[in-house]
């Protein structure tokens, strides 16, 4: 294979990678827009999946951790998805998360924070 050929292959290869990934990025954007419209469906899905979490005829491997608490009053915390922040602003929370992630060497994506709360 000549240098020229190899350059050609490389160029085409680069174009292919870019084309596929750019196409993907547009599809994802498109998907997000479309799915945004089908909000009702989404809510149904979320509800269904929440209900479904504890069904299943197999018992889950590992241990079932049940943290039962008696919520005396409805908590007034501010919620972002699965994370509740109580008396902490978002920036501090991000910092805490980064620190925990760094200290524990666990990537942020694998950590699951339930609640960050200021202790007075």
């Amino acid at each position: 294979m000549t240098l020229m050929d190899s350059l050609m292959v490389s160029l085409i290869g680069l174009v292919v990678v870019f084309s596929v990934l750019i196409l993907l990025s547009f599809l994802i954007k498109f998907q997000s827009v479309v799915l945004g419209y089908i909000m009702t469906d989404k809510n149904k899905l979320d509800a269904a999946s929440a209900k479904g979490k504890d069904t299943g005829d197999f018992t889950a491997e590992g241990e079932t951790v049940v943290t039962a608490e008696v919520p005396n009053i409805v908590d007034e915390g501010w919620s972002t998805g699965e994370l509740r922040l109580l008396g902490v602003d978002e920036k501090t929370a991000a910092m805490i998360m980064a620190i925990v992630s760094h200290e524990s060497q666990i990537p942020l994506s694998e950590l699951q924070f339930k609640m960050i709360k200021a202790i007075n």
Partner: protein
Amino acid sequence: MMLIACILIYMAIVKKYEPLLLLPIAFGVLLANLPMANLMAAPPDDHSQVGGLLYYLYQGVKLGIYPSLIFLGVGAMTDFGPLIARPSSLFLGAAAQLGIYIAFVVAICLGFNPQEGAAIAIIGGADGPTAIFLSARLAPELLPAIAIAAYSYMALIPMIQPPIMRLLTTKKEREIEMVQLREVSKLERIVFPIVVTIVVCMLLPSVSPLIGMLMLGNLFRESGVVERLNDTVQHALINIVTIFLGTTVGATAVAEVFLSPATIKIIVLGLMAFVFSTIGGLLLGKLMCFLSGGKVNPLIGSAGVSAVPMAARVSQSEGQKANPANFLLMHAMGPNVAGVIGSAVAAGFLLAMFGS
């Protein structure tokens, strides 16, 4: 060869260079090079005698099964949320494959045949299973050197990338804080692996074992209805396959091929590929920074090489050095996981070009 095995064991245990793969690889090198042990010996054609233990376990590499199953586990461990939240991450994941093509051209110039060149070049994808999948098909005799180079450089990312990052970006660019990513709905996360599977596998069928399994694993993760399977692919299955893959990849290292100038060339080309992939990601990062009017920190570009999650951590740490309030980790995770798809696409292209 035994000395090389011991050096690799040292790198795995003391230096902690990707020990999950390097330790089995190193021990595989050791086992396969014990004189007369014949652990990689094929049985005679009439199967009158049994072959070596590692010969049988190696079939999973040869048939491309192990890398695919590893990707099943990787998919279950990967959170594509940051990528879905900012699809432009994919541009960076594409740009950071630059090193693959540069290395390919140089490899051809150095006299490798196209198959070998492609297998070597994929080191620049910074993705172990992809590199093993491709070289097992295109240039099996170079497999151990390529796998060792790929995993070693992935472990060395925190040393390779920072100088390049500081060289190519200004302090002001590195200080840029990015706006928080939007939340990604469960539905988007579920649809994503299906869309990627269909699009990528239709455009590049040769890479569908990898992308298909990666996305199946991710669907296990995101669907939320098959926790049992999700757990098993992330633990028992990927661990078992990792042991078999590592040990047998190492066991393909025979002295005549491994102790040749080709290995030195592969090591040099691999480093070059990593460097140029980093450069590619950074340069497109700078362009996106410019085009977005300074909203994109170019440091997240280098994370596009994949090497999940090491490269994203390097972006985070360099960003924080320039600006202690700068938290790039989540922003870098997008290009980081995009890089996995990017290298798989690049591998698919090379396989389509040069596969038999």
